């Protein structure tokens, strides 16, 4: 089914290799920064794409799909000198991430990618609205940097359960032109869901967003996409489903869309929010 996307993705070189852990450390409760020495892959990966990580645990037969967070330029890092390093952010979700979190620097993992599509950036994009929830902010980091570098005005709205779980807030604070925060417990920014500040931004006549990029828990994505759509703003979301192959072969991660079933791994993970049939998609939600 991923023939179309394949023809498109085929333009991008793919890599299957071994990656050594350069750093793997907790950056927030249950949230880890994983820096991998996989330079060829790091050079290829685009904002919004993901990789599959083979944890080399004999009883865990499936690889773990994790989105790219950012790429560190080649140079010194810690004790060593490296090519470009790939950084991921992950949250403890189950047995796989739990074991991953215990792996020390130097551990060799299998990796392949880059996988999936990237956040689309139409040529005339002048002002972009990014909305991240929890660990879902991570896949927006590369995009924010890319947009800023391209001279685009970038507004990031970020939510989390509490101030500790505003993933990479410092980075977004530095990178983005505007940075609004919301926490469930009010420990930082707006008290409540990210939809609060999002609504304000959308209602503010001074803003003239061309496009919105949303990543986070599915209910949050649905709510945010609805607000954006109501405001006439094209919104893209990054979806998550149980996944096996990661490359369009097994049809595990399909999502119902107005164009028919689509693979999160090969047509996505990024979709135009209008195309996703959210109600039908609900029964296969991961969380």
């Amino acid at each position, binding site marked *: 089914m991923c*023939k179309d996307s*394949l023809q498109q993705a085929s333009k991008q070189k793919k890599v*299957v290799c071994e990656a050594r852990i350069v750093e793997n450390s907790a950056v927030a409760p249950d949230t880890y920064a994983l820096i991998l020495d996989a330079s060829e892959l790091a050079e290829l990966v685009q904002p919004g794409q993901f990789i599959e990580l083979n944890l080399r645990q004999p009883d865990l*037969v*499936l690889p773990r799909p994790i989105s790219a967070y950012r790429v560190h330029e080649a140079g010194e890092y810690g004790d060593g000198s490296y090519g470009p390093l790939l950084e991921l952010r992950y949250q403890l979700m189950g047995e796989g991430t739990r074991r991953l979190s215990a792996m020390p620097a130097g551990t060799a993992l299998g990796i*392949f990618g880059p996988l999936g599509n990237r956040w689309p950036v139409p040529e005339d994009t002048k002002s972009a609205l990014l909305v991240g929830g929890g660990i879902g902010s991570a896949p927006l980091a590369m995009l924010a940097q890319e947009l800023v570098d391209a001279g685009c005005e970038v507004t990031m709205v970020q939510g989390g359960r509490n101030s500790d779980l505003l993933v990479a807030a410092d980075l977004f604070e530095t990178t983005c032109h505007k940075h609004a925060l919301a926490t469930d417990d009010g420990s930082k920014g707006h008290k409540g869901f990210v939809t609060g500040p999002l609504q304000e931004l959308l209602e503010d006549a001074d803003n003239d967003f061309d496009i919105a990029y949303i990543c986070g828990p599915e209910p949050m994505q649905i709510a945010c996409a609805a607000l954006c759509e109501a405001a006439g703003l094209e919104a893209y979301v990054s979806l998550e489903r149980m996944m096996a192959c990661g490359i369009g072969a097994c049809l595990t991660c399909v999502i119902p869309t107005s164009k028919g079933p689509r693979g999160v791994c090969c047509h996505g993970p990024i979709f135009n929010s209008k195309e996703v049939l959210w109600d039908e998609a609900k029964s296969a939600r991961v969380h």
Partner: protein
Amino acid sequence: MKQKVHVSTKVNTATTLGELRLKNPLTVASGTYGSGLQMADFVDLNSLGMLTTKGVSLIPWAGNAGIRMKEVSSGMLNSIGLQNPGVETFIEKDLAWLRAHVPELPVMVNICGHSARDYAAVIERLEGEPGIAGYEVNISCPNVSEGGHVFGATCEGAAEVTKLCREKTSRPMAVKLSPNVGNIADIARSVEEAGADSISLINTLLGTAIDARKRSFIFDRQFAGLSGPAIKPVALRMVVEVARAVKVPIIGMGGARSGLDVAEFLLAGASVVAIGTANFGDPLAVERIVHELEAFCAEEGVSDVTELIGAVA
């Protein structure tokens, strides 16, 4: 630990599956490799002895709703539901791509259907198309006219599908058996008598998974198919049983993930071994396993992999 003797035995990995000649005894389990083209950015498809495609049905199948996969101990449960775009799209896109890009690769097209006629119709449609080495008939599909029981659950159902398909093709035809039976050897014999040129086994073991906190089944259809290393002992046993029951060659599968595993399946009686779940963790799994099998043969002084077939004592 045993010292490895690095003998410089030159290993001939070529094998046959009936009239088919394969450069090595490795194929992929249907559904784990798409129709091959999805993997082509990652792997040289010509490293396979044979490609086995995802199941193709007469009309498009939407597959199952809900969660489609869950990892379990040394395995995974899947409930894909044989989603596929139907035989016409398969011919137009996938088969055309395969013909254009890997013309030398033997392609086994996996066939599924909800009635015996469905299966036969898919084969009839494909029979005139070039670029097909043979068919693998998956009799684990739910038989809609028989209330959803799989054809492979009875000797009669298995034979019926095999016979109708046999009438439509002169190409090599494998029949893929369900392991969720008490008499796998009987079913294999029925299928052989009905005209199968080879037998594939095992399909997935029927299992389930429960979300205890939600008090619900993980899968919308409740039950799902178990694959992976967890099932290897059962798969090996069934290959042994079937190899003793029939004369036609066997495509063995079920949790193989190393060259040593493949050697075990060959010894058990398989002529060809399919890699399934292992493809997910590593798109290059088959390539690696071929090398491991060669190394195993070299170490053991096996100059021709076919020596291993059925050689367990």
